[in-house]
C-alpha cells in the first residue's frame, strides 16, 4: 500500500504510545493527535486520548489547571512538546535564542513544558525543522531540562524526538539521543550535517518501518473523521477526508 509521510509518522508515533492509557495532545499537533486517536481506537477502551481543542475527544471539564493536576498525579502517560532549540541532552528551549532576557529571537514561551517534562513519563518531542539552528549543542535557555539529579522527583522526561529527517529515541541512562530510523529520502549524512549535537547511531540504521496496512485503513476511515473535528484542513489535505 502507498502511504503519505503523515500516515507514516502517525503510525510511528502510535508505536511509541504502545501501552499508554492516558495520552494528552496540546495545540497545533495534528499528527500526534491522529496517533493518539489511533491508539485509542485500537485499545478497545483501555486508552484514552485527550485532544486540546476538541469538544468530543476531551475528558476534561474543570478548566486549565486540570491537565496539569492530572499529570502531577501521574495520570497522564504521554504528551508532546516542541522547542525552538533542542540539545543533545534533551534540554528544550521554547523561550529565546541569544542572551536572555533581551534575545536575538524571542519564541512564544515555555507553556507547560517546565512542568509536564517532569511529570509525564513519555514526552515525545516533535520538531519538523531539522537544522543546526534548532538542534544545537547547548540550548540558550532551558525551559525544561532533559534530565535531573537523582534527588529531584522526576517520573517524566523525554522519550523520543521526531524531525523531518528521522526519529531519535532518548537514552535516559546516558542522557543522549540514539538515532532510531530514517524517514523516506533522508540519509545518515544529511542527519549528521544538520544536527548540532552528538548522538549515538547503530551500525545498521534503517528506514522507519512502514505503516501497518490495517492501521492505514483505520487512519483513512475512522481516524480521519475523528481528527477532522479539530484539524479539518489537515484531515482533508493529508488523510483524504471527505467529510
Amino acid at each position, binding site marked *: 500500500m502507498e502511504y503519505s509521510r503523515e500516515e507514516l509518522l502517525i503510525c510511528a508515533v502510535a508505536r511509541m504510545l504502545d501501552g499508554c492509557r492516558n495520552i494528552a495532545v496540546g495545540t497545533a499537533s495534528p499528527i500526534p493527535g491522529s496517533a493518539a486517536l489511533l491508539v485509542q481506537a485500537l485499545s478497545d477502551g483501555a486508552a484514552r486520548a485527550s485532544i486540546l481543542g476538541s469538544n468530543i475527544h476531551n475528558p476534561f471539564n474543570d*478548566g486549565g*489547571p486540570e491537565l496539569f493536576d492530572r499529570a502531577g498525579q501521574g495520570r497522564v502517560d504521554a504528551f508532546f512538546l516542541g522547542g525552538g532549540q533542542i540539545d543533545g541532552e534533551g534540554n528544550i528551549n521554547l523561550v529565546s535564542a541569544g542572551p536572555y532576557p*533581551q534575545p536575538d529571537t524571542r519564541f512564544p514561551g515555555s507553556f507547560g513544558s517546565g*512542568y509536564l517534562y517532569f511529570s509525564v513519563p513519555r514526552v515525545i518531542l516533535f520538531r519538523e525543522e531539522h537544522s543546526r539552528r534548532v538542534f544545537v549543542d547547548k540550548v540558550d535557555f532551558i525551559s525544561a531540562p532533559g534530565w535531573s539529579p537523582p534527588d*529531584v522527583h522526576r517520573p517524566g522526561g523525554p522519550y523520543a524526538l521526531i524531525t523531518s529527517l528521522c526519529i531519535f529515541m532518548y537514552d535516559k541512562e546516558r542522557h543522549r539521543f540514539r538515532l532510531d530510523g530514517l524517514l523516506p529520502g533522508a540519509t545518515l549524512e544529511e542527519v549528521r550535517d544538520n544536527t548540532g549535537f552528538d548522538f549515538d547511531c547503530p551500525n545498521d540504521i534503517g528506514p522507519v518501518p512502514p505503516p501497518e496496512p490495517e492501521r492505514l485503513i483505520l487512519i483513512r476511515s475512522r481516524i480521519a473523521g475523528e481528527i477532522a473535528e479539530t484539524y479539518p484542513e489537515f484531515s482533508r489535505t493529508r488523510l483524504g477526508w471527505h467529510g
Partner: protein
Amino acid sequence: MPVPETYLSSDEIASRIPDGALIGVPKEDGGVSMEITRALIRREARDLRLLTVPVSSIQADMLIGAGCLAEIETSGVSMGEFGYAPSFRRAVENGDIVIRDATCPAIYAELQASEKGTPFMPLRGILGSDILANRPDWKTIENPMAEGHNDPVVVLPAIRPDFGIFHARYGDAYGNVWVGARRECVLLAHASARALVTVEEIWNGNLMEDDRMLAGTVPPIYVDAVAYAPRGAWPLSLPGCYERDSEHLKAYVLAAKSADGFAAYIDRHVFAKKASG
C-alpha cells in the same frame, strides 16, 4: 432582555483601571474581554502589568503594541497557527518590556495561593530550568514532609491581581456572571482584588437561583463591575457561542508586523468604532 441599570460601559470599566495596575486575563479560548482590551487602548492606559492565565494571544499583543504594558508575566504569547505574536516579539527583543517567564501550572498555583490567602504554593517540576533561574521571587525549599531523603520543591508566591478581567457568556440584573466551564475565570475572580467583566448576553432571572447555572456562576462578592458587550470576545471565540475570526486574526498578524501596520489596525478597529462585529 434590557441591560441592567447597574451595568457600566466597557469604556467606563477601563477608566476604573489605573495606570500601573496588575491585571489578570484568561487564555484565548477562556473568555477574553477584547472589548475592555480595546477600551484600555482607547483610554491610553500606561505601565500596566499583565498576568496571562496562563498564556495569551492577540490580547497581550495588542496591549503591548499600543504601549499599555510595562511588564508581562506569561507562559507564552503566540498567535498559534497564525504565527508569532509580532508586538510581543518586537518588544521583548528590543527590551521595551519587562518579561517574567513562567510555566502554565505555576501561574495557576500563584493564583491558587492567592485564592486561599496562603503565602505560597509548592509545585513539582521547574527545577534546573532557566525559568526558575530568572525568577528570584520563586524559591526552592526542602520538602518538610519527606523523611530520610532530600526532596527539593519549588514554592511560588501568591499573586493577587488588582483586577481580573474576562468576558462571560451571561450576566444578570443581580450582578452575577456565568462563565460555565471556564474555571480559570473563576480562579482569576477569586484570586484578584476585584473582577471586571463584560457579558455576551443578559440572563433572564437570577443565575444564583438556577441550580443548573449555579456552579458556573461568579457572584457579585467577587465582581466589581459588569458591562454588556455582545461579541465582546471578538475576534477570539466565546465557546458555545461563536468561533474565532480566523481571517481577522490572520490579517492582524500581517498588520502588526510593522509599527505603521499596527497603528492603522488600531485606528480602524479600536478608535474608529466602539464595538466591532
